[in-house]
């Protein structure tokens, strides 16, 4: 039953990330919260790999790809944030509202 | 091939219209007339070629269409469809001729009109449920545009209301069709095949499907309480479109009930006969009273349609030879008579630009020919003996009264009120509009012109001829009615 505590830890981190993503007004802040969520998933996977001995070490391989995607997403996301900052001079999500939400 | 030809000739004509260069409106009118005329000629050929002594489905055309769904392109005619076929092509040609007075966006007008004709013909000829449904829905779109572009002051409202109501009905019908398909074994959309399988369907299933299909058909007829789209659509539509709407489109509803429900769901038909009779009664009485209350001539005739379709429903609910024959005959007659009435209202509206009954008076001395024609049409509509309307209404009532059921007799008795009221409001209308001293304001109105005469007179002739020789239609319908009754007769209510 060693696995369950890890799921608990990752669940807590996941929830913190979700909380941050829901409440942050700063787009960069939201981005950081998202990194928490990705890491929560990784902790789960690594722990599963350790205690369930998954086939082909998927529990270690999967996080590598998650990190890769997170990096790619962060790069594109920050580029989007910068380009909107140049036009509207703000990174606050509520203020970016030409179209109705 | 004749049936395919008659169905698609209007469509081909319509597509040909699209290639006519801009501004050549007379060429457009010519092509449209030619297409409608050819369709009428072919339908008359079908009528003459139909062997009444054998009855049943003839001119059958069947070929593969969507093999994966077991859908076939399947067309055929029996007495019921032939009556509708001739009615449709005749009224279409007349409406096309009457529509020469349309001057804005002529090309689009006739394109939509011919597309509509194809849809209507397809509905009456299809024997495959899928095909039937496709044609059924094809009629909606052109009708929307015909009302919405060329209609009266509240045309947009009327058009979308018509569209939403009828689409609602038809999608519910679609569910019923799909359910029928999956219940039949092997899965089929073939109406004749489904009719053969009818005994296999459970009673509950039949009732559920009947209700689903009924909603679709009832909105078209329209049966109370689904009728509210009708006055709007009829009043706002341009004259020729009102003719088609009242003359043909409403028949699609009753035709569907007879063709589909009566052959495929006999148990449910018997089960729901009495409720249907009640609805018929409401249609007759309510329609008549509403018509009486109208001040607008066109609206009055629109409500009289509700009343007249009530007779059809009553005849259908009776499920006797006389009742069903009367219903089919009444469908045909109503198309002819109401078509003529709408044309005639159009004639006067074009001149006076008003349809207020109160505003007219003494038109009889100003437009004697017009008055004469109008009077004949009105008398036919209220069922004066000697004109065609009498026979069909009489048979509907006779059929309903023959049923050995006290409730049915009571309902029929109450429905008779409708006849009296109808006679009353039509006579009041005649008196207010045509009799009495000539109103100074309308002295300048010109007599009905040749184009209008060409479109109305054939209808009047038919009313008179059928008034003396109702046999012509009866012979056609009775063969189909017999087979329908044979299927229904085995079921005890």
């Amino acid at each position: 039953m060693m696995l369950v505590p890890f799921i608990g830890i990752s669940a807590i981190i996941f929830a913190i990330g979700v909380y941050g993503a829901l409440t942050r007004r700063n787009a960069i802040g939201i981005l950081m919260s998202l990194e928490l969520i990705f890491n929560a998933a990784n902790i789960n996977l690594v722990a599963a790999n350790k205690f369930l001995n998954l086939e082909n070490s998927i529990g270690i391989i999967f996080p590598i790809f998650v990190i890769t995607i997170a990096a790619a997403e962060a790069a594109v996301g920050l580029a989007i944030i910068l380009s909107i900052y140049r036009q509207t001079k703000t990174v606050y999500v509520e203020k970016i509202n030409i179209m109705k939400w | 091939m004749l049936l395919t030809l008659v169905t698609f000739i209007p469509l081909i004509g319509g597509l040909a219209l699209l290639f006519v260069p801009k501004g050549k409106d007379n060429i457009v009118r010519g092509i449209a007339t030619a297409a409608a005329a050819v369709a009428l000629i072919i339908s008359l050929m079908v009528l003459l070629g139909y062997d009444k002594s054998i009855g049943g489905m003839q001119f059958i055309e069947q070929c593969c269409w969507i093999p994966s769904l077991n859908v076939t392109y399947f067309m055929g005619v029996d007495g019921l469809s032939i009556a509708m076929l001739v009615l449709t092509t005749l009224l279409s040609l007349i409406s096309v001729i009457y529509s020469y007075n349309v001057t804005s966006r002529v090309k689009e007008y006739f394109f939509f009109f011919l597309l509509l004709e194809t849809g209507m013909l397809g509905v009456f000829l299809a024997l495959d449920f899928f095909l039937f449904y496709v044609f059924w829905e094809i009629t909606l779109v052109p009708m929307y545009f015909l009302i919405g572009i060329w209609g009266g002051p509240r045309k947009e409202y009327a058009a979308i209301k018509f569209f939403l109501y009828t689409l609602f009905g038809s999608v519910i019908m679609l569910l019923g069709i799909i359910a029928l398909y999956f219940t039949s074994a092997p899965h089929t959309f073939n109406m004749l095949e489904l009719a053969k399988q009818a005994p296999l369907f459970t009673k509950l299933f039949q009732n559920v499907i009947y209700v689903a299909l009924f909603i679709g058909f009832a909105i078209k007829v329209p049966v109370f309480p689904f009728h509210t789209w009708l006055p709007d659509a009829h009043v706002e539509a341009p004259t020729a479109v009102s003719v088609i709407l009242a003359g043909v489109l409403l028949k699609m509803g009753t035709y569907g009930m007879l063709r589909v429900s009566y052959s495929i769901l006999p148990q449910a038909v018997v089960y729901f006969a009495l409720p249907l009779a009640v609805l018929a009664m409401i249609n007759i009485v309510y329609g008549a009273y509403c018509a009486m209350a109208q001040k607008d001539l066109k609206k009055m005739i629109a409500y009289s349609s509700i009343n007249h379709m009530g007779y059809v429903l009553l005849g259908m609910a009776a499920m006797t030879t006389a009742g069903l024959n009367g219903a089919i005959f009444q469908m045909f007659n109503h198309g002819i008579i109401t078509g003529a009435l709408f044309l005639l209202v159009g004639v006067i509206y074009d001149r006076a630009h008003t349809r207020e009954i109160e505003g007219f008076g003494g038109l009889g001395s100003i437009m004697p020919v017009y008055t004469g024609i109008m009077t004949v049409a009105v008398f036919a509509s209220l069922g004066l003996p000697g004109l065609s309307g009498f026979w069909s209404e009489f048979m509907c009532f006779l059929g309903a009264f023959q049923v050995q059921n006290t409730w049915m007799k009571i309902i029929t008795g109450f429905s008779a009120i409708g006849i009296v009221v109808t006679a009353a409001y039509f006579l009041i209308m005649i008196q207010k509009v045509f009799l009495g001293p000539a109103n100074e304001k309308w002295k300048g109105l010109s007599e009905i012109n040749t184009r209008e005469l060409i479109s109305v007179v054939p209808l009047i002739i038919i009313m008179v001829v059928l008034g003396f020789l109702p046999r012509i239609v009866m012979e056609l319908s009775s063969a189909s009615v017999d087979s329908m009754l044979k299927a229904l007769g085995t079921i005890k209510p």
Partner: protein
Amino acid sequence: MNTALLKDFIYLVPEIFVLCLGILILGFDLFIPERFRRRYIINLSVWGLLLSLVLLVYAPAKGLILGNMVSIDAYGVFFKGIIILSTVFALTMARYYAPIKDEVIGEFSALVVFAALGMMFMVSSSDLLMIFLSVEFVSIAFFVLTGYIKNDPKSAEGALKYFLIGAFSAGIFVYGMSLVITSTGTTNLKAMTEILRGPGAYSPLFICGFLLMLVGFGYKIAMVPFHSWAPEAYEGAPTPVTALLSTASKAAGFAVLLRVALAAVTGKGDLVMALAVLSALTMTAGNLMALQQNNVKRLLAYSGIAHSGYILMGVVAACSGTAPALGITSVLLYAFVYMLMNIGIFAVIIAFFNKTGSDDMQSYSGFSKSNPYLALVLVVFLVSLAGIPPTAGFIGKFYVFSAIIQAGQKFLWLAIIGIMNSVIALYYYFRIAYFVYFGEQKDERKVELSTGLAVIAGVTAVLVLLACIYPDPFISAAAGSVLNLW
């Protein structure tokens, strides 16, 4: 080294070809002078994609390859066909879409081609790892494409909202996956199917994980309540990208959702019911919100949400256990049909936008008087979107309703909600027709239809009509793709 495994790459020839095409475009871009760039680059990408379509048709089916990462099957080929076709259409539109400047058309085309590549992988993924990777691949490409118009705050805003919601749902998606992997011990869908057929396989952890994964899918297909990005992104994005987002991206989303759902929820009544509820919510909310829109692109976004609801009906039927084949067929067919009509209508919208610079419904007033033929084509698409014969939309609707009815009485309520919705939908589609045909003419100028747009609008309109008049080839193609899904 296990070289036998690597030989399987031969089955990925269409994908590899598309990848090379993307890189070729990037290189080509450097050497073409700016004034020819638009024409040459778009031509190169369009013809390249068409060639890959040929390769696709002749590529042999193989089943699971490369460590069971992807499944090369007819199901995937069908969706890849949809994806490539809509990408070709979108690129052709982009050639005539002014806001995308000449100097960035090279990167634009390359990104579109890469997005198509990602979607091609998405539809054949048969492993959670591949699904995650390809879904994110496509998302990242679309984030960029949505924000592609420089100095247009709407475009940037659409991209930001799309990105934030997209990345958020990606996080939830991957977390859900981690729970699913923990509870089943595998990432492979085939293995998962077998494990889940075992006793007690539906552990609470698995259900938790699957529901979280559903968020990710829901986002991809614009399912309520994860739809809120769609109108923003659709309105802000360059219209060719909107067309692509609403067709290919959605089709790919459904392809992968259906694969996962078939593996994960087939026969699990509660989860199927949850999907059914989501389907009902999606179509109803989409339609009700579409009623209030005045911008045509936004309206199509909401109508697209509603259409997602209809397709979900097919997914529900496919997973119900009683109508698997018909359910899958209906999803395939609907995705195809929806692609046709949406691409067509977006082509008309672009043609109109190029003249007036507006997407507002009111500006369509009197359109039929200045452009009778284009207006007629527009009506064909509207009729099809409303699901009325004789158009492709009817065949699609007919199939999803058939599937849901065959799925049993348990889902009859869903069919009835679907019916109600198609009536609501009619109202707003014909509000456009209302302006086009009944409105007062404001602008007498004729819309100059460029050849490419005319070809797209014409071809799709003919196909839309053909798909109802002679639907058998389309139906057999869809039905044939259901076989040998694993």
